[in-house]
């Protein structure tokens, strides 16, 4: 891998706690000396956060699609009726 990708891997190993203890010391020394590295770490953390939000949106969309199927498809009519009965009194 090219150098920039290895740096991303190193930040990932550091953030996810999979870096060897000796390497952690060296990495943290680099953080003190290199303000660009601090920025890279900060933006990489934001990247993980964005990936999580994107992924959650997608999983929720898949779940909603399943619910939509249950709400509309003819073969699930009995199930719909069964559920609707719980809410009849309200």
């Amino acid at each position: 891998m090219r150098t920039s990708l290895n740096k991303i891997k190193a930040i990932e190993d550091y953030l996810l706690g999979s870096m060897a203890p000796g390497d952690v010391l060296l990495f943290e020394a680099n953080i003190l000396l290199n303000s660009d590295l601090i920025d890279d770490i900060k933006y990489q953390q934001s990247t993980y956060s964005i990936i999580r939000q994107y992924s959650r949106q997608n999983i929720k969309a898949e779940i909603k699609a399943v619910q939509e199927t249950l709400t509309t498809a003819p073969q699930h009519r009995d199930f719909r009726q069964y559920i609707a009965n719980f809410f009849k009194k309200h």
Partner: protein
Amino acid sequence: MIAKHNNRLSTAKLREAFFLALYKKVFPNVARYISRMGGSLDEAQDIFQDTLVIYYEKLTSTQNEVILNEGAYLLGIAKKLWFQRHQAITKNQPLNDFDIEVVADEQPATGKILHYLETAGMKCMELLKAYYYDRLPADNVAKLFGYSGTHSATVAKYKCMEKVRETIKQKSLKYADFIE
């Protein structure tokens, strides 16, 4: 960092069957409970959607917790969500104090960046989702995304990280409220 349940949930088709089975098996109990608590069908559906997101994240996490009774576990999450939601409404407070972590309200800048990435970097976002959220093993990711092997897929992952990180950096300079 690979989850044990990843293979049976690795494609949209498999997840569809999985979620459908859970709706059939568990949603009646959740609906009955929400109904008894005075809630509506819409509320029951909303809560069950969040319940399934939480359960999916639990299954794909690296924790090795054994869930013996899936139905009881899901009903427990739904009850907790109901109480948290109900409590927040009666206290007129925002839903941001979950100890079960649910999809949080996002900052406006995050939404803009996310929207940009959904349109301009869809393939990368899908690849990163497979690695970091679905936690699929590298050989599975390689197969799903058409890479020749795990090394190629791993390199592609880091290239995507670089691309997305750079996008976030550029956009963050524009939307100052994104970082911090």
